[in-house]
């Protein structure tokens, strides 16, 4: 009976946790729309949202409407969707490698995606061809899979989580260096935009981008949620997972594909965003006091959204009108989390 009551308490506290995260998402969404170099009263935001951009209220001026509907709205949506994807990708990678400091950025997966996207854009833009959102995702996926493949090879050769991370960081450096070369020597005006993107930014997102990323992220996230049960078994250890009937090969394959896909999607639209993937799963674990996938998966998504919406808000407004790159802000908040994790692990092992 004590057990039953504990279970109920747990469920209640989970609900509270999710409610808080969802509330944070909504509040930050409103802030992201309302705060910026052009003042936009709440009334206008609501009017603009309520009736849809094209039929915005008479009170809202055209400029405000354009800013809200064309710039801030898609940008906020991107932070929400891609932030969630980042949180989830980090969670999947940490689970896959049994490594608490894994993430798409430190493992070089984001940088791999960045490199292929840059190459494709420079090449195609040079020949005067515009790259669609799907094309960007395809290019990013190719790079993400390549980098992931490299990390997988390294993970068989090196022992210890620290060495794996070091290999990932090295891959990241190599890819970034090549990307910088490509971007520096590409003179085309369009490619100048690449420079911002290659440092990581949610700016310049269009509704078409949002639609594509929403589709990809929704499908991937749903797939992850359906894998919650085998992921839970896998977390405790591989031989135990097999013994309860998990198809290890298929699960590992799915984890690799989904985490690379999510990482690729983020990089295709926002460039490499650091530390969100590592930090969010730990913060979410702290909130819910559990590592159960059924809680962690939606938790990491919402947590990632909150983290990115918050950081993008700061990136835009802190030194407005100058924008910071998103990674500058995420690093400030994410890196300490990673340090805390490392310190705590050491202490736990005594």
């Amino acid at each position, binding site marked *: 009976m004590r*057990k039953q009551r504990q279970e109920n308490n747990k469920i209640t506290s989970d609900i509270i946790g999710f409610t808080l995260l969802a509330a944070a998402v909504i509040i930050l969404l409103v802030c992201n729309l309302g705060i910026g170099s052009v003042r936009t009263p709440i009334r206008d935001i609501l009017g603009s949202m309520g009736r849809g951009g094209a039929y915005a209220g008479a009170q809202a001026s055209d400029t405000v409407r354009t800013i809200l509907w064309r710039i801030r709205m898609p940008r906020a949506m991107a932070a929400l969707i891609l932030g969630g994807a980042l949180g989830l990708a980090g969670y999947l990678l940490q689970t896959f490698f049994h490594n608490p400091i894994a993430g798409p950025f430190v493992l070089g997966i984001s940088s791999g995606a960045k490199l292929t996207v840059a190459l494709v854009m420079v090449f195609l833009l040079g020949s005067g061809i515009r790259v669609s959102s799907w094309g960007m995702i395809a290019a990013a996926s190719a790079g993400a899979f390549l980098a992931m493949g490299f990390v997988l090879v390294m993970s068989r050769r090196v022992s210890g989580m620290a060495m794996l991370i070091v290999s990932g960081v090295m891959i990241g450096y190599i890819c970034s260096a090549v990307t910088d070369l490509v971007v520096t020597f590409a003179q085309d005006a369009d490619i100048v935009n690449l420079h911002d993107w290659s440092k990581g930014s949610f700016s310049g997102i269009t509704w078409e981008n949002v639609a594509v990323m929403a589709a990809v992220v929704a499908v991937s996230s749903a797939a992850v949620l359906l894998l919650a049960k085998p992921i*839970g078994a896998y977390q405790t250890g591989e*031989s135990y997972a097999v*013994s309860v009937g998990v198809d290890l090969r298929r699960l590992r394959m799915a984890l690799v594909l989904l985490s690379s896909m999510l990482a690729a999607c983020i990089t295709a639209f926002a460039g490499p965003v650091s530390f969100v993937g590592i930090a969010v799963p730990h913060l979410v674990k702290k909130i819910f006091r559990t590592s159960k996938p*059924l809680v962690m998966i939606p938790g990491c998504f919402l947590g990632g959204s909150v983290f990115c919406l918050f950081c993008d808000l700061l990136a835009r407004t802190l030194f407005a009108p100058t924008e910071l790159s998103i990674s500058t802000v995420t690093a400030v908040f994410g890196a300490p989390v990673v340090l805390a994790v490392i310190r705590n692990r050491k202490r736990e092992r005594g």
Partner: protein
Amino acid sequence: MEPCFFQTRQLAAGYHNEPVLRDITVDVDRGEILTLIGPNGAGKSTLLKSIAGQLPLISGSVWLDGRKTSDMSRQELSRRMAVVFTDKTYTELMTCGDVAAGGRYPYTGRFGVLSKQDWEIVRGAMEKTRAADLWDRDFNRISDGQRQRVLLARALCQQPEILLLDEPVSYLDIRYKLEFLSTLQRLVKETRMSVIMSLHELDMAQRISDKVLCIGNGGMERFGPPEEIFRDGYIGRLFGVESGSYDEGNGTTELEAAQGAPQVFVLAGGGSGRDTYRRLQRNGTAFATGILYTHDLDYPPAKALACEVVSLPGGESMGEAQLKAAKKLVDACGEVIVCRETFGPWEQMNRELWEYILKSGKRISGGKK
């Protein structure tokens, strides 16, 4: 005759298509415990992993209840076979109850949510392995012995008909070793499940097993009941023991005996000499001892540690031959240790030997230090 519940036929197991073991053919019935013994690296874990389906079989087959395990679905196999292996378990913020509940996996639905009935089963399994009081404890903050109990409970949650364990008590202290194996024995009796486990604790393997499979460096060597395995110095040969010795009758070990001509004669018997033998071994002193019946408590350590033992089979009466041999040894030694001074009527010769020693003028000391 009905075939055994569990069988392997000409099993070859190994990594990357290179067999470490070949031609493993064993039978285990319901309610039986099969123990794998053998030196490190011989392939005990490899065999267990292959049986569990965690390593592909190179050739041969594993049969469960008249069917090949390779024809069973993952779910069916996981409802019939459970493991307690040595692989590291990673948990974070998981209680022991959560870990054990993981064993209900083959019985839960799409999202793995446990029903009330499932929780009852988990609770029951934790009670059976005496881990119920650990329910709310963090799995990372319990002792090795407690951890094994929780992992055993987890395996029981699968309600298996056969349980595989790889060195389940290796890192436990003697209390937990005994506790774990006793629990296992009790569970086997209650549930009639079959058990296959590897053990490095030979004494315990000898006592708990219904059958023993010996895996030497060349593969499978012997398979049979423990009384056929633990005899005639076979264990020493199986492990390639070169220094020291293993006494299969008692399951005890002795370190390597001192070499050379005996310097000390030990008058012992009835268990009075064992500690002296070991003390002499520690000091590196070669010694002789007697006169012992071969069924004497002192005889196995004497046999293992003394360079010469004057002995005779139980049931015979001590005669002049033994006395003469012993006197000769006393003469050859510079010192005598007398561990006992009272002798029964059937060992008149030991009394005579004692008197001979007293008269000999040798340096005499008592057995106790």
